[in-house]
């Protein structure tokens, strides 16, 4: 599903965020991406959705070569990858329903079909009764669940999450991780960046560890 081959990312100004990262994530696999703040976790996720472009190496996502992709192809790529953000990135002037429906509106899914899918997604995160509320009326955990519903509403084969439990207490944090685990069991490939090592022991999944831009654990050993 994802294949990094000696990928490096250098930001303008010369900061090396990632150096020679190589690993692959198979279809329906679930993995945790760990490391301290600044180790390059967010950058790695941003490369996958082409929010940032790679400086060197090769990156395949769903058998597509990301760095050779034309600009107008980027929206299609992003529709195939659901992303959950630490700060939710919800639209506060729209209802929960409208927020979750956004990826479908953007993709031009018909009205009836999109209503059905939004309710299905909200049902999976247990927020069906809050579809008419606005994001700011919800708790942090609920907002994050809205973000998850939005990420999965058009059934992407790949789900990325960047510190999805960052601001939550342990109990809510477990709840969120369990939701991701469930999606993985339904066949979605999941990659979660986190610094909460607790989940790793609890869910017993593959671990990729970054340290100052280098993959020190879980890679495919293509490093030179």
């Amino acid at each position, binding site marked *: 599903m994802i294949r990094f081959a000696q990928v490096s990312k250098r930001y303008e100004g010369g900061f090396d965020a990632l150096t020679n990262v190589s690993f692959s994530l198979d279809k329906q696999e679930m993995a945790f991406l760990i490391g301290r703040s600044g180790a390059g976790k967010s950058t790695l996720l941003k490369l996958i959705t082409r929010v940032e472009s790679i400086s060197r190496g090769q990156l395949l996502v769903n058998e597509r070569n990301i760095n050779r992709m034309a600009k*107008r192809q980027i*929206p299609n790529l992003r529709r195939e990858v659901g992303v959950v953000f630490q700060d939710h*990135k919800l639209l506060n002037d729209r209802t929960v329903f409208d927020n979750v429906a956004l990826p479908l509106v953007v993709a*031009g899914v018909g009205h009836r079909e999109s209503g059905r899918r939004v309710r299905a997604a909200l049902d999976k995160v247990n927020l069906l009764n809050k579809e008419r509320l606005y994001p700011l009326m919800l708790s942090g955990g609920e907002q994050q669940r809205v973000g998850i519903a939005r990420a999965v509403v058009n059934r992407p084969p790949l789900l990325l999450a960047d510190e999805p439990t960052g601001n939550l207490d342990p109990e809510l944090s477990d709840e969120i991780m369990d939701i991701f685990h469930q999606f993985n069991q339904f066949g979605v490939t999941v990659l979660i960046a986190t610094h909460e090592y607790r989940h790793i022991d609890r869910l017993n999944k593959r671990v990729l560890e970054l340290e100052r831009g280098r993959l020190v654990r879980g890679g495919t050993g293509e490093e030179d």
Partner: protein
Amino acid sequence: MIEYFLRHAQVLLASLGQLARAPGSTLMTVCAIGITLALPTMLYLLVDNVEVMSRSWQGRAQASVFLKQNIPTKDAQSLQRDLLQKPEIQSSQLITADQALAEFKTQSGFGRALDLLEENPLPASIVIHFNDGHSHPSIIEALVAELQTRPEVDLAQWDMAWVQRLHVILKLVQRAVFVLAALLGLAVVIIISNTIRLAILNRRDEIEIMKLIGATDRFIRRPFLYGGVIQGLLGALCAMAIVSVCLQLLDGPVVELVSLYHGDFATSGITGRTLSLLVVTGCGLGWLAARAAVGRYLRQIQPK
């Protein structure tokens, strides 16, 4: 296909909603556009009206030939017949000295006082009406010059030379209006693109999120383009309202003024053609402005 139109209708409604959510600033923008568009429209109508008026005078292109005193009526009649042979001349009318005096008596109001004159001081004259096809000023001028050389003729003059001059001036004014309209059109583009720019910056987060979840540029652009077109349209309607109010205010004095001259002239207000031109211009400028703003600022907004 239906789905496509439905989606456009949704975007249209959403754009209207966005404008309605900030009624104050929308109203101000629309008024600014209205005033900017009203100015050239009014000048255009003014020029148009004066042109129609001058054309109606030109349609009656005529020259007067005053004969020398004491030319016998018989000779005058033969001259008139001669003139009718010319292809340029459609008709001619002989006014004998007696007729001229009678007309002068009734129109001048001197009435009986003129009876005191021992002899008629007025000359006989021939009024010439030109064929429409031959009413070009150079033809008329040549003919008038030729008539002047005839021995019977005291004075031949073309009555409407000043109309011709007016016509030339009008052409000049028309061009000035055109230039002014172009400049004000540019002002409208700047006004609208500025409001669109603010709208884009206000919705920066939203645009970022849309891009993150796979919205195409076209999709993101659409509501802003609609917003520009709607503002242009509302501005055009506002301009129309301003112009009609101004015309209403001017109509009375204009009718009075015109009746002091020959009278048979009605001001033409906003016709369907003017209105549609105004609306098309407004929408077009709005679209152009939105397009410019969107092209510039949407590219700058990229998710981080």
